[in-house]
């Protein structure tokens, strides 16, 4: 993986295996550690039995905590982490912008507004398993991205870094203000949402994890297959067009996938900032800028990052919980400053 000679090639089976093993190791660590200290032997036995589907009649505390509470939560943490950082990596490539991410562009804020509106006004799509919040979060995320980008293109066709980030920040502020407005007018019903808005993976379930997994499989798969086009984009849109990339189609494809992934993540875990921004920067020194390597590495890196962040949120103040957004923001901003500082020095 660190061998620069292979940098032009894609992500080989060996590298996939290595990353998967690392993610699995962190996953196991998160299975064993938690708010409640369970005996390691009990935990591993319970984990083995749950995996093999042979849960005994008489269960220990480990089963009762692991199966319904801890496992779905860490599944959701790893899947949202993977999804969010894949989105970040793709947007950074598509927009040639190292600061692009769901939270800096205002997409997460838009998705939050969608989710809050659906709770406040009781909007739901009948017959759908994850009706209401998830659907409206996805739609709101897509509308947000469309608004931000069309505005950015109109102002500055070259899509310079500053323009997009400025528009994203302004849009974030506007949308957050609108969320607060909805919360103010919707009365008691939405008051509890202020807790949720900070981002929390508490109470996530297996169906949540399944929804994330399906979206990640479909949208993540599409995004991974777009790596070559993203490589062309990261040199420049003109360049991409000249080598025969259908710029509009690729852009639309990426935007739809990103909105779906961010929307689903926000509706399940609230807005968890910095994951999408920071992980691609963390893995880039290892993989180089080639998206064929960057995207899969971000996928695994994001899962590991959010697993560890959630582990901190669960355990540091036990029995209390920290909102996961607090953890990712603190860790993320420190790492970010570090990356930029060392990056500038090298130049």
């Amino acid at each position, binding site marked *: 993986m660190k061998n620069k000679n292979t940098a032009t090639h894609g992500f080989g089976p060996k590298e996939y295996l290595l990353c998967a093993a690392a993610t699995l190791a962190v996953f196991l660590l998160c299975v064993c550690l*938690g*708010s*409640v200290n369970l005996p390691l032997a009990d935990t591993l036995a319970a984990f083995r039995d749950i995996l093999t589907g042979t849960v005994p009649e008489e269960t220990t*505390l480990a089963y*009762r*905590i692991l*199966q*319904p*509470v*801890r496992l779905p939560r860490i599944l959701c943490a790893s899947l949202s982490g993977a999804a969010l950082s894949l989105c970040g990596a793709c947007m950074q490539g598509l927009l040639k912008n190292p600061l692009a991410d769901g939270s800096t562009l205002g997409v997460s804020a838009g998705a939050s507004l969608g989710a809050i509106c659906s709770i406040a006004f*009781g909007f739901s799509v009948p017959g759908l398993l994850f009706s209401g919040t998830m659907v409206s979060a996805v739609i709101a995320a897509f509308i947000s991205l469309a608004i931000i980008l069309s505005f950015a293109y109109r102002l500055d066709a070259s899509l310079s870094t500053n323009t997009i980030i400025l528009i994203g920040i302004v849009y974030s502020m506007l949308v957050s203000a609108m969320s607060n407005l909805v919360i103010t007018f919707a009365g*008691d*019903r939405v008051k*509890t*949402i202020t*807790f*949720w808005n900070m981002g*929390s993976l*508490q*109470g996530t*379930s297996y169906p949540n994890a399944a929804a994330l997994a399906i979206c990640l499989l479909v949208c993540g798969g599409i995004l991974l297959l777009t790596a070559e086009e993203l490589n062309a984009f990261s040199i420049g849109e003109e360049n991409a067009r000249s080598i025969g990339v259908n710029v509009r189609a690729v852009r639309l494809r990426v935007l739809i996938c990103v909105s779906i992934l961010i929307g689903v993540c926000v509706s399940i875990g609230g807005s968890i900032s910095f994951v999408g921004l920071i992980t691609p920067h963390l893995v880039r020194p290892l993989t180089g800028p080639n998206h064929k390597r960057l995207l899969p590495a971000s996928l695994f890196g994001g899962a590991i990052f959010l697993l560890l962040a959630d582990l901190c949120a*669960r355990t540091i103040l*036990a*029995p*209390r*919980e*920290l*909102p996961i957004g607090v953890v990712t923001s603190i860790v993320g901003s420190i790492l970010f400053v570090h990356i930029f500082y060392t990056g500038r020095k090298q130049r």
Partner: protein
Amino acid sequence: MKKATRLLALLLSLAMTAGLMAGCATPSASKDGEKASNEVENTAVTFTDMTGREITLDAPADRIVALTASDCEILYALGAGDKLVGRGEYCDYPAEVFEVPSVQSGYETNIEQIIELKPDVLVMATMAQTVEQVEQLENAGIKVVVSDAQNIEGVYTAINMLGTLTGKTAEATTIVDSMKKTFDEVSAKADEESAGSIYFEVSPLQYGLWTAGKGTFMDEIANMLGLKNAFADVEGWAEISEEQVIERAPDYILTITMYFGEGPTPEEEILSRKGWENIPAVKNQKILNLQNNELSRPAPRLADAARMLYDLIHGTAAEEDKAA
């Protein structure tokens, strides 16, 4: 541009003049009121508010603005609800309180709104008001009274203080006595045996579990009933882990989640949570939902809440007692 500036200046000066006139009008109006009540009888009242400031009124207050929901409840319980000329926006009990004009409260407290209502007295908590804001109010001729109960003893103090303030001392004594009597009754069984542990749920799982730990009214009432708060090691209100609730396996669950008439009720939602099946409270369906802030406000209804909790624990025994 110049024109706009001039217009702005004109508007500003107009607004300032209007403000000055309003400022002058307030004291003279209240002076008239004082004169009127002095002629009837001399009923000056003096008391100490809950920050220890001594307050003297020439007569029991006739126009009151109360910012906190608990003080509104106390005033209505005293039979002084008709003296409310303004209420904080979150005051919601009893229903009559909605007929009173609402003002912003807490961090958004708006001095102008309060002055406009021309109260004799403003009752508020020690939340977000600066010394300067209190001075502004006192300069406008409004006495500021702080009511800030931190425990049940504090609620008695608040009731007695508001009773003195409104000239309803007898009513205040009745309410306090009745609360004490209820608390005595419900704590009678506490000494016999430990009633078990209770988990208070302030925010449901969907939004992250929040509980009420040590130093809350819920904790105090639990102890009164001989119950052990499952999260007594947590200070105040806090977000806690679902794993911890399962491990601590409380005997009773009390949730203050609101129900909006759709989907499962808060009790049903807790009963259906995965992994909670083995918690004694869930197994024995010992879950109580108090939706109307009975247990989170320093007001007379704390006694009602204690009674409901008592009924949850002792069930039919309490019904028999009532029948007898």
